[in-house]
């Protein structure tokens, strides 16, 4: 269970990036954060990752306060961020250096196979396309079996086809250990494809505008009317978040449930 407890972040320059964020994420839940630019999505993720400290409030992961990066929290960044001097296998196994080599190889080979990169172990990152590199990054984050996985617009730089196939790879890996996932995205369709719950945020200062549940069972059919309906609802909420300044928390979430 991941809890944001009245979280605020003010940068040294005085920019108020986040204000009064309260969310609870159940174990195994996939939560998507969407919102216009500058609404503090990435800041929120960096706080959970332990890369930055909150100005007020706290983040609890199973009753432990997060103040620094944790071994059981995996991060996938917007860019692959592979280390160019390590082979694909060494990149994927970067977080496994404490394991004996044989065990590490077994895990890495398995993880790379599941993201469709079997046989690429000895390649350099520069020999891979952007989509392939991002898949190595996914393998690197998931091979350590984190309890919580954080993703910061991990597919935003990729074309639609690659993105769709990566969604599949990601869900396949997620099924194995069902970590809690918090993902940031600006793509509503991506949020509806992957998430159990969608939180819409508003900028200046970054705060929660509204949230809606996504009860669709996986695998989700992007072309089904139910998918379309949720996507439309999410888009409408996002639109309102850009015009309204008053947060309307929970009210719309309930009506979304009723609508079903």
């Amino acid at each position, binding site marked *: 269970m991941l809890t944001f407890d009245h979280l605020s972040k003010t940068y040294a320059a005085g920019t108020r990036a986040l204000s009064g964020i309260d969310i609870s994420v159940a174990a195994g839940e996939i939560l998507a954060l969407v919102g216009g630019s500058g609404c503090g999505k990435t800041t929120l993720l960096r706080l959970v*990752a332990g890369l930055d400290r909150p100005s007020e409030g706290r983040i609890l992961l199973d009753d432990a306060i997060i103040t620094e*990066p944790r071994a059981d929290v995996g991060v996938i960044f917007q860019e692959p961020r592979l280390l160019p001097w390590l082979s694909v296998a060494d990149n994927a196994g970067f977080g496994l250096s404490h394991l004996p080599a044989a065990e590490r190889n077994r895990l890495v080979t398995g993880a790379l196979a599941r993201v*469709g990169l079997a*046989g690429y172990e000895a390649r350099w990152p520069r020999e891979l396309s952007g989509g392939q590199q991002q898949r190595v990054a996914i393998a690197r984050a998931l091979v350590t079996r984190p309890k919580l996985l954080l993703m910061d617009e991990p597919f935003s730089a990729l074309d639609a086809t690659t993105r769709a196939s990566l969604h599949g790879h990601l869900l396949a890996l997620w099924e194995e250990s069902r970590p809690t996932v918090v993902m940031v995205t600006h793509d509503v369709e991506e949020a509806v494809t992957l998430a159990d719950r969608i939180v819409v945020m508003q900028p200046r200062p970054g705060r929660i505008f509204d949230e809606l549940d996504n009860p669709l069972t996986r695998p989700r059919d992007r072309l089904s009317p139910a998918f379309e309906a949720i996507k439309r609802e999410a888009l409408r909420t996002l639109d309102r978040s850009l015009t309204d300044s008053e947060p309307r928390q929970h009210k719309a979430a309930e009506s979304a449930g009723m609508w079903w």
Partner: protein
Amino acid sequence: MSSIEIAEAIDGKPAAPPARPASRVGLRLAGFLLPVILAIIWEILVRAGLANGRLMPPPSVVGKTLWQLAVSGELWTHALATLWRVAAGFGIGAAVGTALGALTGALPLARGLLDPTLQALRAIPSIAWVPLFILWFGIFEASKVALIAVGVFFPVYLGVAAAILSIDRKIVEVGRVFRLSRLAMVRRVLLPAILPDWFTALRGGLGLGFMFVVAAEIMGASEGLGYLLVDGQQLGRPDTIIAAIIAFAVLGKLADGLLLAITRPFLAWQDTARDRL
């Protein structure tokens, strides 16, 4: 279709190793064309009596002198003396430059304390140290090695400090996410990240080392290729001077090639369009 094929079909880019152009060897040989032609022209002009070869001896005379120096063993004595000085000076200068560069690059406090002084010292033309070094270290090896070390120090120091300051924050964050200890961060992220720039700095330092060994040996030495230069001047033997210059060129090129050959395997991962110069 295997999953790899599918993946490649999706990404649309099978990762193939870059092709090696067949014309590379030819291109390399082309570099010899200009000097060889010029040498032949000069030889012909002197032999035909159209030019006076006394001050600028033709290649055949230089070659003969070089041969005689080699046969008598003189060339090797001088070359070894020069090489030893460069090696010692380069070793000291590179080690101190790397250490101080790493220190000022990594610790803001060290940067604040040391860097202004070092930058001020850098503004001094290194040859200006010679009289002082001779007073301090005597006229023999120590003062020469010290001068070379100073020459090597600055490019290495600047290169290492700049490399550390320009390490990508994003890659360091990957290390932080995986909770690397300070030592592991240095070993697994920071050191590999600065390796290419460090090697480039070392090559620059080595080049300067050869520049300063000439200066040091011209100032006063009883052996070394620089001494051969002065000797040729005093005896009025331009062929000896040119022979020494050629020996310097060959030695410098060999040392640079050796450094390159040692460092290249560590940089196989680099994503550069072409080999660095």
